């Protein structure tokens, strides 16, 4: 639903322009599907993990894991499958209470390997004894912006010998397939209009929208609708024009839209430049009035 608010006292609107109130219904939905090739390790063994061979992240983007990993986590959730846990990480709505056990190393990277016994500084402390059959963990690698770049399913197995030292992570052990629905109902925008997203509550990925993650607005002409893979979406956004939002919740409509011909469509993304989340916080389609 598109709302219109006219405020007599607001000096920011010119005659004929509108304040366009974005709502959750306007969002382009992102569907993400994680999948894993489990890495079975010796049960209750102080396993070491080495990711120097990893060259792509779970979205298939180049990722030199040995030099770009600045955060490492072992996580097991209370009531979530590994796939559900991975989705919660993607949506950035994993809460502390959902986690049964965890350990992490942050801040002193880059890290190229880790051993389970190194993750003992949280409570309850993670220990090799927690690597038991049927109780998988996610081993999560984050980059310097704390974005999840890879998640690998690790599970203890009685049939794996404990004589091995480090387990080698390789490309493709964890993948994330993403589809963006570009057939969302367009939001009409005109010259001089002001976009207002203070009522957004959901993110395009299905998590919670946080206006703190909207530090710039990117817009790019959009031809056609349908759906787009992550590669197609990323390629599209690479060519986008960006304007900073200055931490405000209302900004003037991006210039390319204001200058466009009526009926032209644009993909508009609210994104964060310095936190670099996995996906833009919110995306919608604008149509020039």
């Amino acid at each position: 639903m598109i709302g219109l608010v006219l405020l007599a006292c607001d000096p920011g609107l010119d005659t004929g322009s509108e304040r366009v109130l974005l709502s959750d219904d306007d969002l382009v939905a992102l569907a993400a599907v994680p999948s894993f090739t489990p890495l079975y390790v010796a049960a209750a063994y102080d396993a070491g993990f080495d990711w120097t061979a990893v060259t792509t992240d779970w979205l298939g983007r180049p990722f030199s894991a040995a030099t770009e990993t600045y955060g490492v986590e072992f996580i097991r959730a209370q009531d979530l499958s590994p796939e559900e846990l991975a989705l919660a990480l993607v949506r950035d709505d994993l809460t502390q209470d959902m986690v049964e056990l965890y350990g992490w190393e942050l801040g002193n990277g880059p890290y190229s390997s880790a051993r389970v016994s190194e993750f003992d500084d949280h409570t309850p402390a993670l220990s090799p004894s927690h690597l038991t059959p049927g109780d998988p963990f996610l081993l999560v690698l984050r980059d310097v912006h704390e974005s999840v770049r890879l998640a690998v399913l690790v599970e203890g197995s009685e049939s794996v010998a404990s004589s091995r030292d480090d387990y080698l992570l390789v490309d493709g052990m964890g993948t994330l397939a993403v589809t963006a629905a570009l057939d969302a109902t367009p939001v009409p925008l005109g010259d001089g209009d002001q976009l207002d997203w203070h009522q957004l509550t959901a993110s395009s990925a299905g998590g919670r929208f946080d206006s703190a993650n909207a530090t710039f607005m990117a817009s790019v002409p959009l031809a056609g609708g349908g759906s787009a893979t992550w590669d197609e979406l990323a390629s599209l956004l690479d060519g986008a024009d960006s304007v900073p939002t200055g931490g405000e919740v209302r900004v003037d409509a991006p210039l390319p839209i204001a200058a466009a011909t009526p009926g032209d469509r644009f993909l508009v993304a609210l994104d964060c430049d310095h936190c670099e989340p996995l996906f833009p916080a919110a995306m919608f389609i604008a149509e020039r009035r």
Partner: protein
Amino acid sequence: MLALFLLGCLACSPGDAGDYEVSVVRSEVVPTVFTVTWTSDEPGTGRVEFGPDEDYGRVTASESESGTEHRIVVAGVPAASVWHLRAVTETAGGELASADVEIESGAASPSLPTFSASGKRKHGSNLIAPVFSDHPFVLGLDGEGRYTWWWEGESDDVYTRARLSLDGTAIVFNRFDEDRSIDRGAIYRVSLDGTDAQEIPAELSHHDFVELPEGGYAYLKIDVREYGDGRVIVGDSVVEIDEAGALVSEVWNAWDEWTPPDDLSNGFYPQGEDWLHCNTIEYDAERGVYLVSVRNESMVMELDRATGEILWTLGGEGSSLALASGTAFEHQHAPLRDDSGMLVFDNRDGESRSYVRHYAIDEGAGTYAEDWTYAGPEGNWIALLGDAIPYDDGNMLIAWGTGGFISEIDSDGNQNWRADAEFGHIIGFLDSVESLGGPAE
């Protein structure tokens, strides 16, 4: 970016509208805080009414002295929100109110941990919560889990206690090193608009502090000594400092009272064996006593501020008050006295859940007895921290430490509201504030 709104009085109606302009300036440091200034024709005391719409619903504290120049700090507005306010002057002839002013708060810092809230919180329009992971934060949170205030610390520091200052103009919180390996002990006092941040040295402080009514602070301080056959023991003391951090007095020191046992754990303090692990302190100004939680002894003690004398101990071995009925607490945090006894967050020692318990205390009979219990979620043992704040109507706000969530329960133990922190974040000792803001300093 500084936001400035000037609005003339557009619709003054006799008797309820002031004929004055109102200036609203948004803080550059905490963009949810606004300073409202205006001049009234008639002398009076000013206040600001504010809220999400023109019905307002919240009000700041009023000025204490009458005048025509008014300056009020408005805090408690959620980040990235469009709210409304009006300035009100109470004069001898009645109240004069300005026209409505629309205000826009800025977005919060992207680095703040997110909270997911459900239900409806009855009390505390603003919670003041220290939260930490690899960074520490002090957050103001409204009932929907939105930020109303924030302060971010440096990596490897920990904040465990945050309180609204006694005069209501600042947020006061502590800082110490995450692994206690170096002394980073300090108390911070940050004005509501964030523009005045004082770092008050608090040598070897940890866990908790309390502001004193006459100014200055009391805090828990470690006292590391060599003991016996080459052992190094971490003891505790309670000290008072002035507003600049200069030592005023040592109220109490464990080394003057007791001797360490033979079997102590290592791990929490890299300096040596963790003897008592005092973890919270409260001050009862009316009675002149400190209430100190001594975790490793599963004991709480009341100290006479003037003499440092232990008035009584409750719990643990050698308790001066005897448990008449119920379950004794273990590894507790945040005891709080009330008229009938004491509320305490009972972590337990490695069990499957934690509790909040109330004990009736009969000092005359020398006994205490459990008379109320609230059990936390099964399977969620709170190993570190934990806090409970009771309200007069029987509701209670509970911070579940390492569980990473805060809940409000009613007098029947039903959960009204809950806010869950993002993965990896731990909740410290809270303050609950009905109204933030008021006359500017």
